[in-house]
């Protein structure tokens, strides 16, 4: 019976992994044994971190907003309350971007939030 070999297929399989591992450091890009683990983990983490990225950016925007809000004499927490009262529906990405690139617009948004906050606290006291 002729000897069955699977060498071309095996080689191709390993080459596929090595191609994915291009640019990795040291033996992780050169040796199949290590490249396999590296690409596996790389893809696994990439999949997970596409989700965590969304949280991370939200956290970053909130930190920026807090800093910018405090510079305008209000805390982030109060600002969020005021924005809701003023029915400003801009999201945190946009607000943080405005805070960095367009201080004047951001300041006027804060002003509106403050006004709405004042009105709200007065109406609750009266009730």
């Amino acid at each position, binding site marked *: 019976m002729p000897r069955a070999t699977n060498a071309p297929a095996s080689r191709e399989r390993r080459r596929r992994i090595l191609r994915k591992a291009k640019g990795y450091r040291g033996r992780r890009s050169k040796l199949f044994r290590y490249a396999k683990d590296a690409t*596996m983990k790389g*893809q*696994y983490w*990439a*999949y997970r971190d*596409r989700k965590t990225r969304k949280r991370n950016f939200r956290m970053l925007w909130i930190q920026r907003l807090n800093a910018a809000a405090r510079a305008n004499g209000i805390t982030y927490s109060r600002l969020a309350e005021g924005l809701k009262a*003023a*029915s*400003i*529906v*801009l*999201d945190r*990405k*946009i607000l943080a*971007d*405005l805070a960095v690139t*367009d201080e*004047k*617009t951001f300041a*006027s*948004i804060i002003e*509106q939030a403050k*006004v709405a906050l004042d009105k709200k606290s007065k109406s609750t006291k009266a009730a």
Partner: protein
Amino acid sequence: MAFAIIKTGGRQYRVAEGDTIDVDLLETEPGKQVVIGEVLMHADGDKLTHGAPIDGAKVTAEVIEQRKDKKVVAYKFKRRKGYHRTLGHRRKLTRLKIKSISVGAKKSTKKETD
């Protein structure tokens, strides 16, 4: 610089006239016009208009192309269970060029209060 904040596909975008943006797939064809009615804010220098969304305001854009985003690979793996899956995905996008931003009916710079 005048810009508007618009909302489409659950995301908010800051756009000015002439900008090119990628938004979630819209049911149109290249070369056609789309009108986005959800304008949340408009700023022109000192003049600010707010709304949720602003009544009558709209942003007109031209569809440049219906395209797909770069491929992302979703690799799922459960250790000690012999489970792994590889899935490719390309998000469908519509590339828009912003033609005009109109606020519609004139309003005071401050948000209307009652």
